[in-house]
């Protein structure tokens, strides 16, 4: 039984490996630039799904209006958050992310958001994505009792 289990684990990890070998990473159209990082607190104006990178799932995009300046920002969140979090127009959102301009719009690649008293880490400090596959299933894994 134990030998069978060990074999099973090794076989499918190898399968995983063989599937992934040979995958070339596409160069994204824009990068996370740590030098342009900014924190913005604003009110959600619009929520949409939009393709951002070639061969990648569409991203959850939030149009945010900064509270102090009323300046508008287009915030790139991540693909899977469309299903794991329910954002609504009028809700407050605080974003830490990398700022860049495109077509006259101020865009932010979000690294961290604060929403409804929860901090969500989307990327590490260098901008590497921290979200995972299995978004809806993975959340169910129990960490202690309750919540």
């Amino acid at each position, binding site marked *: *039984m134990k030998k069978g*289990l060990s074999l*099973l*684990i090794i076989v499918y*990890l*190898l399968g*995983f*490996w063989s*599937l*992934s*070998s040979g*995958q070339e*990473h596409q160069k*994204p159209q824009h990068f996370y630039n740590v030098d342009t990082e900014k924190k913005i607190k604003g009110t959600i*104006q*619009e*929520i*949409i*799904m939009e393709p951002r990178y070639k*061969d*990648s*799932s*569409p991203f959850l995009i939030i149009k945010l209006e900064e509270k102090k300046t009323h300046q508008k920002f287009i915030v790139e969140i991540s693909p*899977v958050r*469309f*299903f794991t979090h*329910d954002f*609504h*127009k*009028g*809700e*407050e959102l*605080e974003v830490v992310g990398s700022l860049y301009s495109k077509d006259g719009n101020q865009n932010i690649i979000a*690294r961290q958001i*604060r929403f*409804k*008293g*929860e*901090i969500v*880490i989307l*990327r*590490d*400090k260098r901008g*590497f*994505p*921290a979200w*995972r*596959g*299995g*978004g*809806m*299933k*993975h959340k169910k*894994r*129990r*960490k*202690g*009792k*309750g*919540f």
Partner: protein
Amino acid sequence: MRKLSIYILSILFLSVSLKADSFSFSFFQNMTDNIFQNRYSGRDQLSQMGFYVDKDFSKISIFTEGSYSYLFENPSLSYYIQDLGLDYLHPVSEKAAFYFSLLGQGAFYRSDYNDFNSLSFNFLAAFKTYLSQTSILKSNYSLDYKSFGYSLFDFVSHGLSVSFDKYFQTRTTLKSEINWGLKFFLHPYSSQEVVMVEESGGHQSGRRSYLFMPKTQFEGQSIQVFSFAGLIAQGIGGNAGFNISGMKQWYISGENPFTSVEEFYMVENPSYDRFAWEGYQVGSQVTLLIPWNIELKIGYTMGYKEFPGIESMNLDEELLGVTREDKRRSFETRLEKNFARFSFFLSYAYVDNDSNDPFFDWHGNFLSAGIEWNMLFGGRK
């Protein structure tokens, strides 16, 4: 220990070799004074060690997760769970998308609990759409197939849910949800069949000895349930919020096919799941972001559950002629701190369960702490 080190090193090596997008390693330590959740209050500690790897292939994400749980006082209940799955997000417009996932899971217990060994398959299809910028409609369908070491537990189940929410400018969110579920047991029993029942240690082990014995008169093969749930959530500033929720579940048809049902702490018991009961649950929860961006959650829940088909017994295991009913109150609190590479949590729960079956008249304290270490390889865009 040597085998464990080899496993960890192999997993790390393969994760780097396969150019995974993310890899995480977790360790959770759980303590309780009532592992079997009954009046005999068995203490135990459960150490849980796990890994998670995922990789994107275009729009499909493949993920795998394994965890080993060791129980110090009841090592025969230690188990290993391995998941392998894939998911896919398919937008149909700027405001709507489908999500599909396939998941296979194997759960492997030590010889004393071979009955709990299982292989399962899950398919989930979800749809979410914004009806307006302040209201969301969601619908889920899930299909589960599970085959156990003891075939009495084998089942196929279907679940369908629809939810609707609306956010108001007062920072109030109202949400309602309806759920339907059907569980079909694959091995119904008749009075002519002889069923082998493995005797456990009875009260000496803190468990009933006849627990897995099916009722010989059981004829129905399925259980059908329907539930309605509602939630009111209120945001207070950017750092706090609270919610009040309620849920009621009814049996539409069928009843539990077992002589008794039980739940364990952190160990899935195949005799108990969401199809085992009808009744209600109400709760409230406060969420606060305290200094150093630590999330604090405090909650209180109370509920009433009736277990159709399950007759209460006295401590001499004689039937009392009434359906088992439990009234439960629980208090829970949790602290969590997330960094990009690490996340920590600490949680405590106290549960008081009053039952008309004295064996299940219990209370317990549950304490958990954990750390998760995430390695991101930067392949994902």
